[in-house]
Structures are given as C-alpha cells and as structure tokens.
C-alpha cells in the first residue's frame, strides 16, 4: 500500500485536523500563519473525504483500515481499526463541510477576540474528535473521540468567558456530558467483558445473537451516552445553554457536527451493534424520543427571547426529525432521516452564522432589543431568510425535500404496520414544521424587520468573509433542495443501504464469511428501493414560479409599479409610519411573546415547561439519571 493509496485517506482526514491543531498551537502566533494552517487542515480533511466519495458511495466499497497493519489474528481483532462505509462517509462529509465553512467564517468572526490561537487549536481538536468518532471502527476509540470532542466543546463554550452565562453553560455541559461519557465507557467495557473485543464489527457479530442482562444494560448505557451527545430530550437544555454562550462558529459545530456524532452513535448502536431495529419496541423507542424532542423543543423555542438559544432548541427539534425517521427502520425512513441530518447541518449552520453576524455587528442576540436590521445588513437578511425558509420546510429549499420524505416515510410506515401511533408521528411532524415557521417569523420580525432601534443606527454589513461562509451554506441549501434525487441517489441511498448491510460491514472488517460463521442468521442483503408516494419536482416548480414571477413583474413594471413615492426629506409626515396619526415613535412588536394568541391557549404547558427548565445543574443531572433508569428498564424488559 503506497502512502497515497485511498485506503489511507480516512486516517489522513482525521490526522490532518489533529496535526493542524498541534501546528497551530506551536506556530500560530502570527495571524496569517494560523489562519493558513487551519484552512489547510480543514480543506485537506474535506479533500480526503471527497476523494473517497466515488469508491464508497457509488461503488459501495467499505474501507477497513487497520492501524499499523494489525489485521485480525485468530479470529480476534486486537488492532485499532478505522472502518468507512457509506454511513460513516456521509456523516464525515457533513462534518468536513461544516468545519470548513465554520473555519472560513471564523477568520473574520474571531478577529476581535483574544487567544485566537487557542481557539483554532480547540476548534480543530473538536473537528478531529468528531471526524475520528464517525470514521472509527472501534468502540473504545469512539469513547476517546467522544471525550476529546466533549472537552473541546466545553472549552469552546466557555471561550468567551466574559459573556453572560458562558461559564455556567460550559459547566452544565461538562457535568452532564461527563455523565454521558461515563455511561459510554461503562457500556463499552461491559460489552468488552462479554465479547472480549472492542472492534465494532466483531462486537456487532458477537453481541447481536447473544443478548444477556449485561449487554442489555450496556445498550441502555450506550444509548443514554450517545443521547447526551445528540442532545435529544431530556438533554436539550444543555444544548440551548451551550449554543447560546458559544461563539457562533462553534454553535455551528455543536449543532451541525456534535449532535450528528450522537446521532451517528445511536444509529450504529441500534442498527449495527445490537441489530435490534427489527423489534417494534426499539422502533418505538427511537420514534418516541424523536417525536418528543421534535415537539418539546419546538415549543420551547417559541418561548425563547434569545436568538441563539431559540436556534439551539430548533436544532434539537430537527434532530428529533432525524431520529424519528431513523427509528422507522425502513429504507425510505433512513434515507429521509439522513437527508434531513445533512440539511440540518447546512441550514442550521447558516442560521447560526447569521446569528453570529448579528452578534458581531450589534453585540447582542436579545430579540427584545434588536429590530430592523434588514436596512443595515441586507445580505445577512437574505441569507438568514434562506436558512429560515429551509428549516421551516418552505419549497424549494432543502428542508422541504427531506421533511416531505419524512412525512411519507412515517405515514407509509403507519399504513404498512397498521400502527396508528406512527400516524400521530406524521401529524406531530407536520405541526412541528409550521411551529418552526412561526418561530422563524418571530425572529425575522424581531431581528431583521420591524423598526431599527436608535442604538443600531450605525450598524454595518458584516465583512465579506463571513458573508462568503454564509453564502456557501445558502447555496448548498438551494442546491440540495432543488436536486433531491441527486442527493438521495448519491448520498443518502448508499448510506441507507450501508445501514442495512450489517453483514457486509462485518465481513469487510473481519474477512469474508465471518458474519455467516458467527451469527446464526446473518441479515440478508437489503433492497434499498422505495417508491415515493407523492410527486415533487422542485426544478419545474421553480421554473414555473420564475415564469410567473417574470410575468407579474413585467406587468407590474409596465404599470409603473416601481414608481414609488420615497421620502424626500428627513422629516416628512407622509413617509412616517401610520400610528393612528401620532408622531412616529420607536415601537417594535417582537420578542418572545409575539405569538401570544397561540401561547395563551397553551399557557399551562408553557408555564410548566418554564418551571421545569430550572437552570440548576442538579436538575439536569437528575433528568439524565431518570432517563438512564428508564432506558435500563426499557432494555431489560423489552429488549
């Protein structure tokens, strides 16, 4: 194997990030050197993964890589392994893209901060940790990577430690995150005690057919451990705190990358390690937790007063979508879920970057204080709106394409299984979507439209670098929304196929025929074909809309639509806002209580939720313990 053989690429992708981290800390005194190092390492990582797309995604190859060439001997995988199948590569690509854009954004965004060298070091550590997690083929390595990324994330959350709440958020995240990591570690060693191996593929082969109390407990522990990383209910307050306090470029990573690592862990855990997704109860677990996250977090988001905190809750809500779709255990569900995971990284990244742009220019993200920024920051507004429409599932942006598939998948699942519960999930998903739209209407009214407060009269547009980074995400939003077939055919369908080909995964790692020899009934090769129930042709739609818009615009311009009366002088009653005749004073309708007509009917629910999210770290730890206890009960009784 030459050094440039593609089989080395996964480890290169990880190492380029870690190497970058060390080089930045050593040589990164100079700003240009630092930026160049960070840029080179993230682009290299992205490049290595892109180079693998054809082999893994299209040809369906699974890359098994043994560190130091220590291949399994005597039927035991002792060495440390990387294993890249389509699922890993899919998540790896998401991470690489998000890290790349976030890095580009950071160049301008962090220019006013101190200790930027440490920032980039931690940034690259975090990226490397997540990359290592998704490309790793070894359970203990996954734990190590989880710890690295948790540390980096905690440190970065507390990076701006003078900002209100940053330390607090970091501490809460550290405590509950470490509880989660402990759970992962205990689960790992319990599995090791059963199977005497840490290799993921081998564990999958050995554990699935041989469930006992210890493995069941291990499942619960691992599930809770990865749930803390994915921030699904009941760990969502941590995400909200951490996002709110962290710099925006880090929020992008926390929501787009960190939560994905948790999701990845859960998918690996349920589909590969325990191969239990065929069980109705297991599907119920994921779908239930997913729907709960979806709904609770979207309602929590509606009650928020802070831009980034609101986005954080939405982040978990979207993770809920992904988890729900993944829990359906159908080809379409997995495909839809992964599609949505990708879209979530893109649009949530865009939204966090927009929030960061607002914070960068105005120094606040309080919805009650902002307003009317679209006059000062038009580009940011447009980019934000693209992100907001995407997350709310407005056609033709990408959020719609994946949500639409999720609805079909859940409803199809309901019809096929005859279980009316899945129907409820479809309804919750659809309602959650419109509630998402509502809270982004709230944000756009409170931040970008409405009146411009006097204190932000001199706000300027953000630097080009930040707009460029947002532009990449916005472009991806549009492209992945307009060509859903391209995405599903080349990205999500191979990944979904990989999810269902456990046997192939094991065989690639352990040698052909291993799965068959160990497992009583190795899973059959899946058929990843599904028919979409409805029809949606975004390109044609856009074409027709463009023609229609053109027609309307031509007629409007011919009718002197643009001959408008603009304000001639500074003080002119005619162009003031209509205030019932009063002199136009600053008056902004916005902030947290914009949808009181909705909240009034739900006031008991909102009051309860507000009291529940007490902000005391002990309470959150208690939630984690309760969740752990429930998961233990679940796995011991039904698994």
């Amino acid at each position, binding site marked *: 194997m030459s050094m440039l053989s593609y089989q080395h690429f996964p480890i290169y992708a990880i190492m380029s990030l870690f190497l970058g981290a060390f080089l930045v800390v050593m040589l990164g005194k100079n700003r240009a050197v630092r930026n160049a190092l960070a840029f080179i390492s993230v682009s290299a990582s992205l490049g290595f993964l892109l180079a693998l797309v054809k082999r893994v995604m299209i040809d369906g190859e699974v890359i098994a890589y043994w560190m130091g060439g220590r291949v399994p001997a005597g039927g035991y995988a002792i060495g440390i392994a990387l294993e890249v199948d389509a699922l890993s590569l899919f998540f790896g690509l998401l991470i690489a893209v998000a890290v790349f854009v976030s890095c580009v954004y950071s160049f301008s965004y962090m220019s006013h901060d101190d200790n930027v060298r440490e920032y980039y070091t931690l940034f690259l550590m975090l990226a490397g940790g997540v990359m290592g997690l998704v490309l790793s083929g070894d359970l203990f390595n996954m734990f190590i990577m989880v710890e690295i990324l948790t*540390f980096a994330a905690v440190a970065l959350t507390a990076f701006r430690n003078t900002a209100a*709440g940053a330390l*607090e958020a970091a*501490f809460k995240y*550290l405590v509950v995150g470490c*509880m989660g990591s402990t759970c992962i570690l*205990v689960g790992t*060693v319990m599995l090791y005690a059963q199977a005497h191996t840490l290799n993921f593929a081998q564990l999958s082969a050995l554990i699935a057919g041989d469930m006992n109390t210890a493995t069941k407990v291990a499942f619960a522990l691992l599930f809770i451990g990865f749930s803390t990383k994915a921030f699904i209910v009941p760990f969502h307050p941590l995400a909200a705190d951490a996002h709110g306090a962290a710099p925006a470029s880090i929020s992008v990573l926390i929501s787009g990358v960190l939560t994905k690592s948790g999701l990845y862990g859960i998918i690996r855990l349920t589909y590969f390690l325990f191969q239990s997704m065929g069980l109705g109860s297991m599907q119920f677990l994921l779908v239930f937790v997913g729907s709960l996250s979806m709904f609770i977090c979207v309602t929590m988001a509606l009650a928020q007063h802070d831009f980034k905190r609101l986005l954080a809750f939405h982040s978990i809500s979207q993770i809920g979508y992904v988890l729900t779709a993944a829990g359906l255990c159908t080809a379409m569900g997995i495909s839809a879920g992964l599609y949505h995971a990708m879209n979530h990284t893109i649009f949530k990244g865009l939204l966090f970057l927009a929030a960061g742009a607002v914070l960068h220019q105005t120094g606040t993200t309080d919805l009650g204080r902002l307003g009317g920024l679209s006059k000062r920051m038009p580009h940011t507004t447009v980019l934000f709106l693209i992100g907001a429409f995407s997350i709310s599932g407005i056609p033709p942006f990408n959020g719609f394409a994946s949500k639409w598939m999720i609805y079909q998948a859940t409803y199809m699942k309901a019809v096929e299984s005859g279980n009316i519960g899945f129907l409820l999930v479809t309804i919750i998903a659809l309602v959650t979507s419109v509630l998402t739209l509502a809270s982004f209407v709230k944000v756009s009214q409170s931040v970008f439209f409405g009146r411009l407060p006097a204190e932000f009269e001199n706000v300027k547009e953000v630097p080009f670098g930040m707009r460029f980074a947002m532009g990449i995400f916005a472009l991806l939003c549009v492209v992945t929304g307009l060509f859903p077939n391209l995405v599903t055919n080349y990205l999500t369908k191979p990944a979904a196929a990989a999810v269902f080909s456990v046997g192939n995964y094991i065989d690639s790692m352990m040698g052909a025929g291993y799965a068959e020899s160990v497992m009583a009934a190795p899973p059959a090769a899946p058929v990843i074909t599904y028919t979409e129930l409805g029809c949606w042709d975004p390109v044609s739609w856009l074409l027709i809309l463009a023609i229609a818009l053109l027609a309307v615009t031509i007629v409007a311009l011919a009718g002197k639509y643009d001959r408008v009366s603009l304000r001639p002088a500074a003080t002119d009653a005619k162009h003031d806002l209509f205030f019932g005749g009063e002199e136009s004073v600053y008056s902004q309708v916005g902030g947290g209580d914009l949808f009181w007509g909705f909240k009034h009917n739900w006031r008991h629910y909102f009051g309860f939720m507000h009291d529940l999210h007490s902000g*005391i770290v002990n309470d959150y730890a*208690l939630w984690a313990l309760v969740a752990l206890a429930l998961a233990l009960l679940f796995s011991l009784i039904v698994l």
Partner: protein
Amino acid sequence: MILLNYIASFFLIALGFYTIVTKYNLVKTVIGLCIADYGVNLLIITIGFNPGGTAPIFTWNELNPQSFFVDPIPQALTLTSIVIGACVTAMSLALVIKLEEQYGTLDTREIRRLRG
C-alpha cells in the same frame, strides 16, 4: 472477591451520580464526577482481571496456549480513562474558579442565569 469489586465499582458510580444530583456545591459536584470516574476505573480493571493470572508482559515466543495472564487491554483502557478523568477534574475545577469569580457563589441553585 471479584463480585465485591463489581459491587464496589457500581456503588462508586452510583455514589458519584448521587453526589452530582443532590449536592448543590460546585466543588462537591466535581468530586461526584471524580468518584464516578474511580468507579469506572475499578470496573475496567476488574473486568480484565483473571484470578491467578500473571502480568501481561511477554514476548511472542513465550505466548502459548497454556500461558495465563490478566487481560492487558482493560489496563490500557484504565490508563486512558484515568488520564481523561484527570482532565475532567482539571477542566471542571478551572470552570469552578471562574464561576466563583463571576457569580460570587458556589451554590448551583444560584448559578442559573440560563433557564426556561
């Protein structure tokens, strides 16, 4: 004997979590994390322990089907885990110091600006 170890390790983990949940002092929370970590370390070591086994130090020639030694992998894991545990403690204590500076208290019930 081994059973006692298992009981002790799970007791330590439970004790650690109990401390985290019930104690409202930041330092005690950190201590809880440490206790849980020690419990995990004990668990890993116990898993790797073979009664009567020798230390897993050998050359390739000494390896034969009759050789009986404790499992070396959990020991490696423990080392890693201890290092990580130390990092957690260091990081959390650093945060505690900063939090004390900012909030003027160590009571978790008062460190709750972010809520709702």
